[in-house]
């Protein structure tokens, strides 16, 4: 089990989640955050922190977002750890309510 960051995070990257993670399991890409499934302890503290509700437990990942489970695991292996909150992406507010942002992901 783990928690998973959904597509909603893409091009927003608010990073509020990072501050509360007790085990520092977030990894940072250019315009997306991912959770390392080997580190996440399912404490769920990050869920309410996300302003766009991008984080869910693995079993609650909606049908059209199932690919994000594998993607989180894959990107987490390649990306560096982020443990301190920083400013969201400049156009985060414009992107926060959009869906189908997967093609915007910078790997």
């Amino acid at each position, binding site marked *: 089990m783990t928690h998973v960051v959904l597509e909603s995070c893409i091009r927003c990257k608010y990073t509020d989640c990072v*501050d509360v993670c*007790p*085990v520092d399991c977030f990894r940072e890409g250019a315009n997306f955050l991912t959770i390392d499934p080997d*580190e*996440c302890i*399912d*404490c769920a*503290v990050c869920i309410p922190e996300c302003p766009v509700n991008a984080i869910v437990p693995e079993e609650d990942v909606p049908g059209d977002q199932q690919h994000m489970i594998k993607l989180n695991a894959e990107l987490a292996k390649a990306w560096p750890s982020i443990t*301190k909150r920083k400013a969201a992406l400049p156009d985060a507010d414009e992107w926060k309510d959009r869906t189908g942002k997967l093609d915007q992901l910078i790997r």
Partner: protein
Amino acid sequence: MTEGALIEADAVVVGAGPVGLFQVFELGLLEIKAHVIDTLAHPGGQCIELYPDKPIYDIPAVPVCTGRELTDNLLRQIAPFGATFHLGQEVTVVRKQEGDAAGRFYMETAKGTRFLTKTVFVAGGMGSFQPRLLRLEGIEPHVDRQVFYRVRDPARFAGKDLVIVGGGDSALDWTLEFAGDTANRARSVTLVHRRDGFSAAPASVAKMKGLVSEGRMSFVIAQPTAIVAEGDELKAVEVTTPEGEVKRLPLEMLLVFFGLSPKLGPIADWGLGIDRKQITVDTEKFESTTPGIFAVGDVNTYPGKKKLILSGFHEAALAAFGAAAYVFPDKRIHLQYTTTSVKLHKVLGVETPTFDN
């Protein structure tokens, strides 16, 4: 740091959340007296820090209670066992002893409280609660000089120009303390919060707004975005309003109350078997890879583990029996029931009921 006398103990419980508190109960039934350590200044752990007023529905035989009620009831339940609480201090050292004290553990807290104990119960949950920091460039050197995340000595802030950041109870309580008619009244108080909604007691918010309308303090809806320093001295904080306007607030002291969040911290360095930053235990005694150190509640992991308070209660019961073998190596421990055991009635301080049939 002043070192206190070495406290010799049978059991030290690390963490005063619900499972740590119930651990005291289960140890108490086996006549093992416990010391309890917690980073927070009060018992309750996550129940108090994260959801004091939210209802919990899955405590057996308690259809609903809040985190605060659960904590209060557990404290009542363990009262007969006279545990000693060491609050507001983090455990920094846990070391297995050799020689004369072989088989025991030396423990030390950040406040210098020292223990020599036969058993350790790690009930550390998701870790110790630490203040969430204000991330602004160049702020670090000012922390604990002009920037504070907690108030240890209110008198230090009296007569000063204060900026207080945050929208929870801590931010509001200290705002009222320093802006009101108290011995610690500041020269000026400006409260900064990112929106005009608070996660604090409504009465405190109303009082704060009253002080604002009387012209005794200011309230600014904005987020801190930069600090202004001259040499070593912090002079002001720049805040940006939702409309994008930047305001400069001069200050002598900056108080930040963004709440607390748990960090696993030093538990990971105690030499215990760890999997995904949780302590691996067996499911017979919930003992770690180090005999004599048990782990119960959210901090442990084993096949099928579920982070539920009720699982933690079960773990605490079996861990207590596991510990009895170390505390009373020559005694056979029998399971007894609190309903019928005269011995348990004695330790609980209750009268043995008599039945007339």
